[in-house]
């Protein structure tokens, strides 16, 4: 179980508890967090689950693979060095307290 915080573009935040083996994407979908569309259901096809990891983050996240890197070229909002696909971020105790920022648009 991990607490994940999604910060919306207007500054408000939604904090939810997410169980393993879900992903950060699925945590948002299960709690109807607006701003994550995830049209491909988590198969790294659509780029509509784009998030920016908080720059101050120190929690361990898996490295990005080539497919994720490529999919991030197509995000609706500008990609940055903090960009990730939330469907490629598995939830575990190790990322309890993760803060992610949602982009202005996903599609």
């Amino acid at each position: 179980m991990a607490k994940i915080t999604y910060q919306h573009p207007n500054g408000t935040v939604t904090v939810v508890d997410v169980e393993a083996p879900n992903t950060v994407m699925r945590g948002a979908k299960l709690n109807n967090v607006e701003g994550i569309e995830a049209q491909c259901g988590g198969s790294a096809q659509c780029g509509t689950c784009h998030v920016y990891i908080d720059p101050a983050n120190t929690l361990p996240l898996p490295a990005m693979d080539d497919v994720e890197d490529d999919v991030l070229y197509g995000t609706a909002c500008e990609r940055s060095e903090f960009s990730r696909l939330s469907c490629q971020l598995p939830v575990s105790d190790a990322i309890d307290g993760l803060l992610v920022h949602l982009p202005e648009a996903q599609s």
Partner: protein
Amino acid sequence: MAADSVVVAGAGQAGADTAAALRAKGFTGRITLIGDEPGGPCDRPPLSKGYLTGAVAPEETVLRPPSFYAAQDIELMAGHRVASVDRDRHTVCLASGLRLPYGTLVLATGCRPRTLPVPGASLSGVLTLRGTADAEDLRLRLSGSPKRVVVVGAGFIGLEVAATARGLGHEVTVVEAQPRALARALTPVMAERVVTGHRDAGVRVLLGREVTALYGDGTGRVRVMELDGGERIAADLVVVGIGVVPNTDLALGAGLGVGDGIVVDSHLRTDDPDIYAIGDCARFPSPYAGRHIRLESVQNATDQARCVAAAICGEPAPYTAVPWFWSEQYGLRLQMAGLTAAPDETVTVGDVAGGRFSVLCFRGGLLIGAESLNRPADHGITRRLLAAGTGPSPEAAREPGFDLKTFARPPAPVRGRAPVQERQTTPV
């Protein structure tokens, strides 16, 4: 009156996403989601892919768990069929006889598979694939010893099933009536590459051949398929993927405009301002096609759901989302953006033989879409370019060394750049 109550007829991708989007937007009225499938809304894409191999577990094909609907105060009536709509009284009547009032009605009834119009089509072992029950039946039949599987129809579902069955070690034949595979969906270059992939994997692909009859053994199980010209092939299992028919009965019965789908305007409204139609069953004016079309994709279902939810919440806007679709066969990533039927010019970039390339499609010198095989960056970039209307010219795309990544934006990630949001946190 139930002016602020929304009834959604059809609990699939589009219906479930409408209910979720309404709540996410802050809609506080009553939401009733009625669907005739017993399990509630399911995620269909895995049903022709990972579900059949066991890579995707049954519980993962549930779009959202039952607790979601309870938490969001969405009344999910799974296993219920809407039998008719009474527009004058603003009520729907269920097959059980129950009547429910609505302020706004959303028709999200999807499609059903077309069945094979030949003798023997109702033999045991002749299947179509739409819901979880179909997929479970097919999964069980594919789980045993090697069988002779014949897939009728070389569209996406047929080819995905063929790839999956072949991957499980079955002997697979694909029979397609058109002279080429994926004729309506893909350019010849891409379709041919996909067929080559199947042939390389040992699938027999018969193009331009029609099924004329199926014959069973003494117990009513399918055994033989007969093709035009009289050729017979052995078949222990026949999977029919020859397209779908939109579920328009409710709309027809209510006197709404119907013609290969429920006809809606640019705001996805039917002839009745209180009734919308979305997803696979809706025929809408597409700015990308320049005419009314029907699309069968997750993207279209979820984007139309959000469009309608916004309208119900008082933010009406025309539906203009960029169409896109994906397919997976033998682990290959095939993605389509825009509407690529009938381009007048195509430019292929990348490595065709190596299976990593994109076909950029143009009409009148404008980019109208792209098909990508194992080039996800090209796909995503094309979607953004189409949304912005700023694609490359065909001449630019033909320049040696042309790359969409460099055309569209500077190489990413941009070092030292802060994330887009740097705002004050307002705890809630």
